[in-house]
């Protein structure tokens, strides 16, 4: 079937490779050959998702120290936490793609952010429309019926409103402020007395550091749980 990946047995080392195509198999289409080629290139680059996931699960690489620190800082709410390497790579790729002149940039395929940036650029600073093309568009639009034009305008207005609402929602909430997380589901601040043996009053002198150690550790776990709740992770 077109688009499906086909598997076949590959002889082991020292065995002659079977070159004959099985009789009951349809011949490889051009699309399948191209897909196989793309998969092979992705495997060589190391960005084929399935094989990358399997490799990571089987032999996970060690997390670099600075990435670890960045993730920890972000989890603890530091808005100025450094990006991880995994984030820096696509950012650099996007920057390079945008720095390229327009024709070369158009040649970049499959980069969603490049497409988005291009669309935003077109909306913010559209290219000049050739006069004849403009007149042709106006004439075409005027030739349409009034009812249809009204429907289109209403559709455009509604679309713009929906887009504005989505953008406002995205800008209005930070990365760790998902809307709709009820306060009741978050762990509340409370007395620390349940962290101590109630039947044993505090010693007359000393012990303050061990008490604050216990309080900070317990609330650190609570904060982590609240973070996960706010992220929707259970």
């Amino acid at each position: 079937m077109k688009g499906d990946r086909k598997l076949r047995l590959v002889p082991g080392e020292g065995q002659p490779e079977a070159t004959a195509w099985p009789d009951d198999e349809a011949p490889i289409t051009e699309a399948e050959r191209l897909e196989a080629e793309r998969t092979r290139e992705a495997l060589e680059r190391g960005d084929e998702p399935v094989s990358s996931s399997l490799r990571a699960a089987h032999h996970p690489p060690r997390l670099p120290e600075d990435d670890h620190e960045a993730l920890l800082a972000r989890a603890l709410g530091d808005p100025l936490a450094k990006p991880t390497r995994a984030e820096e790579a696509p950012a650099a790729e996007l920057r390079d793609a945008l720095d390229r002149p327009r024709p070369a940039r158009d040649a970049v395929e499959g980069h969603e952010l490049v497409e988005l940036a291009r669309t935003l650029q077109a909306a913010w600073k559209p290219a000049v429309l050739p006069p004849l093309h403009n007149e042709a568009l106006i004439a075409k639009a005027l030739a349409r019926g009034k009812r249809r034009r009204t429907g289109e305008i209403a559709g455009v207005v509604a679309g713009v409103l929906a887009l504005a609402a989505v953008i406002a929602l995205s800008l209005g909430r930070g990365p760790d402020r998902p809307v709709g997380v009820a306060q009741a589901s978050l762990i509340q601040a409370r007395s620390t007395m349940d962290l101590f043996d109630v039947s044993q009053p505090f010693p007359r002198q000393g012990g303050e550091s061990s008490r604050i150690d216990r309080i900070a550790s317990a609330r650190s776990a609570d904060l982590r749980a609240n973070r996960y709740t706010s992220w929707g992770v259970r």
Partner: protein
Amino acid sequence: MRRGTLALLLALAAAGCGQVHGCAQANPGDSQPAGLCPCEPGSAPVVDPKLMAFLSKARSAHHEADLAEQADDRARAIDVLQRLIEGPRPPPPSAPEVIEVLADTYARIADLRSALGEFDRAGRDLDEGLKLAVTPTHFRGHLFEVRGLVLERTAKALAEKGDAPGAEKAKQAAIQAFQQAIEIQDEVITRALGDGGM
């Protein structure tokens, strides 16, 4: 454009705008924790990064004070803890954790001051701590216990100066403070054990 699609877009626009507008109006101070929609009314403090930042700072201050005490530098220990007391705190409403940690810190400062002979200032620190720890907890009981300790030291100092009446008065006040501490601790234990403690 189909009517259904148009209606869906309009509904999305209305819902999105309404949500943004409503949340933006409520609680502009944004003292709520991450993940809490600020338009929810009646919000109580939750465990958030601001509380955690305060607790981390308190933890560091007390450990630094430990090191200063080990070096027999009580003045430095007091200075470190005083900075915690006077420093920034999470915005109101105050979390119980903040109140209890500050009360415990006041008690430690009072202990340190009284060891240096600063009995009056130690008493004022304890007053401040008791203003915070108003509910019967071991933190409040500990403040009274330290008050008894401070008064005990006061009595000893006065006796060494030859002020026998003053020493006796301080001694009686110390006994009273220890009794108050015991009463609070008993109340905490009884309440925690419930009927089983009777």
